[in-house]
Structure formats: C-alpha cells, structure tokens
C-alpha cells in the first residue's frame, strides 16, 4: 500500500511538472519544470526495477541535456511571448486537439486487461550487467550506430555554433586561419578580401592548398 501512495505522489509530481512546462511564460521556469518531471520519471523507472535506466535518466537527462537547455536559455536571455499566434482559434483549438488525443489513448488503454507482471529475478533484471549483455550482444549494431549518431551530432553542433553564419563580427579575423575554404565563400566579398590580405589567412589558405594536392 505504501508503494502505491508513493506512486501517486510521484505521478502527481510528474504531471504537475508537465503542466508547468506548457503554462509558464518564462523559458527558465519551463526548463525547471521539465527537470522536476524527469526526476519523477526517474523514480518511476526505479519503481519498475529499471535501475540502470534510472541512473542514466538522472545523469544524462537531468544532468546533461537539461543543463544544456538551461545554458542556452541563460545565453539567449529572457524571451518575450506576449502576443497570440497568427491563427485565430489557436488558443482553444490546440488544447482541444490534445484532449481528443488523450481520449483516444484513454479509450485504447481502458479496453485492455493486463496479466500480473511477469516474475523476474530482481538480482538480474535491469542491472548494469544484464543491460550490457543485451547492448553488447544482440543489439551491438544499433549501439554502434548511436555512437556514429552522437559523433555526427557533436561535429554538427560545433560547426553550427562556431558562427559562420554571422556577418562582420570582430572574431572573424581571428577565426580566419581556422576556417575551411567552404566557409570563406559564405562570407561577403569584402570580408573575404580582408581575410586573404592578412598574412595568417594567406598562410592558412596555402596550407589547405597543400593538403588538397595529394588527395587529388
């Protein structure tokens, strides 16, 4: 009985956090509400005896991803979201659509009866060892694919956040020798001439030319 009361407490926290995510006006409060929801979900994973997923949920989600969100919100400053959307009936149509969706899912769930949960050996189920057996055995190929995905995401984030899109900032001259020839062409013409006229950038261009020759 105590564990059911605990479940309802955690479930109420999770749903309150979810309501906070969509109702608060300031993005920083949205992010903190989502942190609360994720911690509650981590406790639910523990109730489901998924120990490793519980730890990963706290470390990766609330520890890394949410801190990244907080960092970006703090970097970009407070956003204003005063006016309504361009669509006329937007404000009540969207919650109505959400309620209809919830009713669909609810009707699907309410028609089912479930067995009691399968008996599992809780010394094995959900531990790091048993997860590793699956992850490095039968599911090794998807696991390696996710590592490639993470590598692509990291390289893409570095490329995107380096600021090649920005025009005429004082950092451009410093970055000129690091830039590849493709990002040079994205800059305006006068910036390109200014960069080539600096000796460091000319040396950098020469280096890239030398590198390209053996490849071709």
């Amino acid at each position: 009985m105590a564990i059911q009361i605990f479940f309802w407490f955690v479930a109420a926290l999770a749903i309150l956090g979810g309501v906070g995510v969509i109702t608060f006006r300031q993005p920083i409060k949205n992010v903190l509400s989502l942190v609360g929801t994720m911690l509650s979900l981590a406790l639910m994973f523990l109730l489901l005896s998924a120990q490793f997923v519980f730890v990963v949920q706290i470390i990766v989600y609330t520890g890394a991803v949410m801190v990244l969100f907080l960092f970006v919100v703090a970097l970009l400053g407070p956003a204003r979201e005063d006016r309504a959307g361009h669509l006329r009936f937007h404000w009540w149509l969207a919650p109505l659509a959400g309620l209809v969706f919830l009713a669909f899912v609810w009707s699907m769930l309410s028609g089912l009866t479930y067995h009691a949960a399968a008996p599992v050996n809780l010394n094995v189920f959900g531990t790091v060892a048993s997860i590793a057996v699956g992850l490095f055995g039968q599911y090794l190929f998807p696991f390696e694919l996710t590592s490639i995905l993470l590598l692509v995401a990291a390289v893409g984030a570095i490329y995107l956040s380096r600021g090649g899109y920005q025009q005429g900032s004082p950092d451009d001259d410093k970055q000129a020798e690091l830039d590849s020839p493709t990002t040079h062409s994205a800059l305006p013409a006068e910036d390109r001439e200014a960069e080539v006229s600096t000796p460091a950038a000319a040396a950098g261009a020469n280096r890239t030319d030398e590198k390209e020759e053996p490849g071709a």
Partner: protein
Amino acid sequence: MPDPVLLAGDAGVIQIGSAGSIPVSWFLVVSAILFALGTVGVLVRRNPIVILICIELMLNAVNLTLVAFSRQLGNLEGQLFALLVMVVAAAEAVIGLAILVDIFRVRDVDDVDELSELRG
C-alpha cells in the same frame, strides 16, 4: 532463441513489491497524460526553445511506456530501446539548440512563425 539473461523469467529469487503491486496500466496512463501535455505544448507555445522542451517531454513519456512494458513482460529489450531513445533525444537537443543559437545571433526570434528562411 532469446538470450537467457535477457529473459530472466524463472527463479524469482527476490520479489520485492514494486511492479507486482502497481498495475502497469497506471504507468501507461501517466505516460499518456504526459505525452498529451507535450503535444499541446508543441501546438500552443510560440517560443522555439519551449517547443524543443515539449518534444523532450514527449520523448520522456515514450520512455516511460517502454520501461513499463519491459517490466510487465519481464523482457529487457524495452529498457535497451529506452536507452537508445535517450541517445537520439540528446542528439536532437544538441543540434536543435545549436541551430537556435546560430539564428539568435543574427536576430531575436520569439515566434516560430518568423523562422521561415528554409521555405525558400
């Protein structure tokens, strides 16, 4: 032939309450409510950062369903899938936030309807 460790079905050495006394449907209902909240957030909110946050909320709801069925069926594959979903969600958040930071550097955006550069 599934791995015997993946399907640790028998024995039942220790059966501490947990999901034995909480029906799996409760977890599914919580997950459905969270997913619907995330959907409404994506539809209602105008700020692109908040829309990304709502997508994270929906992915978390899906993870709860996966782990709940993993416990219900006594099969670890649901938890493995939840871990892969976490990796994909992290990559999505990183790329989405990097794009937003790059756009915010040029101009302030407080409405996703203003982000129409890719329309051509």
